[in-house]
């Protein structure tokens, strides 16, 4: 009998959760911009991945076809040493999106973990972590990134990922820390503590689910942020090496005035790709915020 009762409560919880999910999905679908954003993100991602899977040729220079305008053979034209720009934009998309997603997820995880520890424990631990984050913020992010590029002294994809993660966790950290500081005084947390639940259980199993929504939203918008960051860094020539195309380092060619003047396709297409993707991610993030943020409901 008792067993049956628990089962039914569990069932109820489940059905409540699924109806909330349904409600949220409906709410999301009603936000046309967010749906459009999701659609654009998915389409661009699929295009880039398909391009990578069928193995488009992005690296062979055709020295007789340098800077040729868009045509039937080269839909987006060719770049300064005659490489097919469409393939470069597709493969560059794979790398750019990967950099954005990887850095956003990893820096969110680091920021959330540190924020949870600092916010929940408070005291000296909190003070130390906050000091470190303030130290990081004494530099403009881009300058910090540039300094790390100088220290690591090599322009590789791995180094870039490392630098972005190291310099990108502070915003999530501050947000999560504030949430924890206010949530740790809630009754349910006190109850769990009184029952003798371990600290890590309270922190990650009880409080974390309540902080998940803002973390998801900020991770989404951070994807856009890191893509833009990578683009700027590669544009000034401190990003990934040219042999690994990204949207940013394709645009690096546009540092030359001659390219800007004579070969619009070299900067217009990758520029459009970045703008479109970032725009779509921002719309998607706004839509998610509307759905997930309880404060706005």
């Amino acid at each position, binding site marked *: 009998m008792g067993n049956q009762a628990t089962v039914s409560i569990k069932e109820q919880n489940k059905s409540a959760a699924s109806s909330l999910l349904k409600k949220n999905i409906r709410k999301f679908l009603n936000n046309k911009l967010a749906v459009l954003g999701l659609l654009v993100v998915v389409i661009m991602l699929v295009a880039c991945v398909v391009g990578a899977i069928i193995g488009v040729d992005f690296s062979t220079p055709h020295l007789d076809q340098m800077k040729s305008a868009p045509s039937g053979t080269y839909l987006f034209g060719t770049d300064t040493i005659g490489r097919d720009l469409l393939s470069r934009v597709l493969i560059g998309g794979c790398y750019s999106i990967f950099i954005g997603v990887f850095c956003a997820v990893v820096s969110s995880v680091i920021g959330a973990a540190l924020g949870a520890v600092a916010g929940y424990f408070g005291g000296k631990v909190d003070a130390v972590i906050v000091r470190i984050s303030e130290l990081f913020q004494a530099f403009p992010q881009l300058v910090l990134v540039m300094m790390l590029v100088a220290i690591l002294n090599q322009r590789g994809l791995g180094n870039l990922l490392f630098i972005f993660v190291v310099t990108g966790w502070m915003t999530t950290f501050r947000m999560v820390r504030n949430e924890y500081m206010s949530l740790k005084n809630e009754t349910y947390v006190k109850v769990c503590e009184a029952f003798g639940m371990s600290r890590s259980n309270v922190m990650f199993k009880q409080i974390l689910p309540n902080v998940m929504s803002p973390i998801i939203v900020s991770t989404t918008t951070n994807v856009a942020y890191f893509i833009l960051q990578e683009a700027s860094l590669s544009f000034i020539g401190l990003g990934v090496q040219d042999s690994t195309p990204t949207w940013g380092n394709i645009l690096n060619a546009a540092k030359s005035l001659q390219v800007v003047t004579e070969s619009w396709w070299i900067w217009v297409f990758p520029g459009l790709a970045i703008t479109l993707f*970032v725009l779509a991610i921002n719309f998607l993030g706004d839509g998610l915020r509307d759905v997930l943020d309880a404060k706005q409901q």
Partner: protein
Amino acid sequence: MLKFILKKLLLMIPMLIVISFIVYFGLQLTGIDPINSMVSPEVLSANADRIDELREELGLNDPLIVQYGRWLGGILTGDLGYGLDGTPIARTIATRLPYTLELAGYSLILSAIIGIGIGIISAIRQNGVIDYVGRVLAVLGQAVPQFLVGILMIWIFSIKLGWFPASNRVDPMATNAFVDAFLHLFLPVATLTIGMVAVLMRYARNTMLDVLNSDYIKTARSKGIPEWKVYLKHGFRNAMKPVLVILMFRIPTLIGGSVVIESVFSYPGIGTTMTNAITSNDYPVVMVTTLIIAATMLVCSFMVDVLNALLDPRVRLGE
């Protein structure tokens, strides 16, 4: 108030020391032999057998902490050392820092005026034409990479229309220094301003809306105070504090942005100096430029604190 300012000033010193420490030791980790930047290559190859003596002479065999102290002492007395090409870093900084301050300063002032202006108008005329255009601009401004805006600017205004030069800061042939400065600064300043305005006007609009919906505005209106006076005297003043703080918080982004924009317009500022120094492994220059930028940031956040204390007595009394 004086005590508050003094306290904040004193807090900046340990912060600066820690930052200089990190910059110095961080760049020591690169493993680039500093002797290359202290002695010219000819001297080095001529004295190949004397390198160890040279090291001793230059103090490169001393413990790192002693070298750090010497470096810091040099900086405090104005001796910034020499770049890879042998020019004194102090001279490079003296010519290039003003250019960057010009660029960032004008953008800050312009974007504050335009951003706050548009923000307030769109809050007063909510859902009007300006509000709508502003919203679209804000969304676009956050999605288009700033350097792409710069490239577009060059393409439209200097290549297609030919109104402004596409690069550099000073034209050696120019006769009027003022006109020359205006022509060269216009495009980079406009590019930086657009990015800042996109963010600022949203904040200005939202805080102004919050203020306009508050009770004391209703009270002011019901007293029969003219509408413009309600907006300016009662609304504007209270809405500006958070906006000013946001403005100051955006300064790092502005400085970061100006590094990129300088690169787009081949503008000879501190950002270009740093970018070039990194690509050519000129690490004495990298250290000094990073330190200058970090110090600027600290001064800015100091000013935010003071400004805040001036505007809001609770801040200085709370301390």
